[in-house]
């Protein structure tokens, strides 16, 4: 393992952008392309937003974000202790949302899957949800030190 991080933040909407910056800064140690960084930021944004909106329904709760850097990849876990997901299979379908009245598009998981190399969702009703994601970072000539 090259490096790891663990971040705990409350489920406030202003922490969505904070979480994106933190994971992007951490991932930058693998010298990713701007495109890889922006894909990681987008996926993190989706998972953290889901914890804020769905898991805790705008009530106060804790979000835990773990990151691990390996030679060629970043592994990210985003955990909440919120309401959990009834059916993960349904939740992952494009356009499926339980909050259409809040103008949710139901595309969060679809975007995570599109932008990351692996997305795993573990959830238990009334216990919480963990989203595990992996992004492969492709090697380039490293001109910096």
């Amino acid at each position, binding site marked *: 393992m090259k490096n790891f991080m663990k971040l705990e933040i409350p489920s406030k909407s202003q922490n*969505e952008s904070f979480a994106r910056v933190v994971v992007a800064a951490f991932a930058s140690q693998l010298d990713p392309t701007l495109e890889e960084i*922006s894909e990681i*930021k987008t996926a993190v944004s989706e998972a953290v937003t889901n914890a804020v909106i769905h898991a805790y329904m705008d009530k106060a709760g804790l979000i835990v974000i773990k990151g691990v850097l390996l030679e060629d990849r970043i592994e990210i876990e985003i955990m909440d202790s919120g309401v959990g997901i009834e059916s993960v299979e349904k939740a992952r379908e494009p356009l499926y949302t339980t909050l259409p009245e*809040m*103008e*949710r598009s139901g*595309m969060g998981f679809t975007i995570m899957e599109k*932008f990351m190399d692996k997305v795993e969702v573990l959830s238990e009703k009334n216990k919480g949800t963990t989203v595990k994601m992996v992004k492969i970072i492709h090697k380039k000539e490293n001109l910096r030190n």
Partner: protein
Amino acid sequence: MIIDIRSSGEMILASLEGELDHHTSQAFKAKVQTILDTEETKNLVIDMSRLYFMDSSGIGVILGRLNQLKKKGGKVMVFGMQSQVKKVFYAGGLDKVIPYYEKEEEAVNNL
């Protein structure tokens, strides 16, 4: 995010600068609503040339405005998407329901 909203006749021009996520999309929705409440207008053109990040909350708020304005016979269009925004726009299927252009003139000419 900085949201600049101007209306002229039947068109609202909203310029978004920064990041459109769940946190900031609420302010965007509210600012459009303020204009719709006070002025006779039905089309929304969104300038994304200085928007450097959007996630699916952005898709939701844009679709929400489309549904709202369609009822009045209006349209929603966007122009000037940067690469991350364009990728999310396509991934979310917005390209099938929202016309998008490179430049402001093209959008306005197609109203």
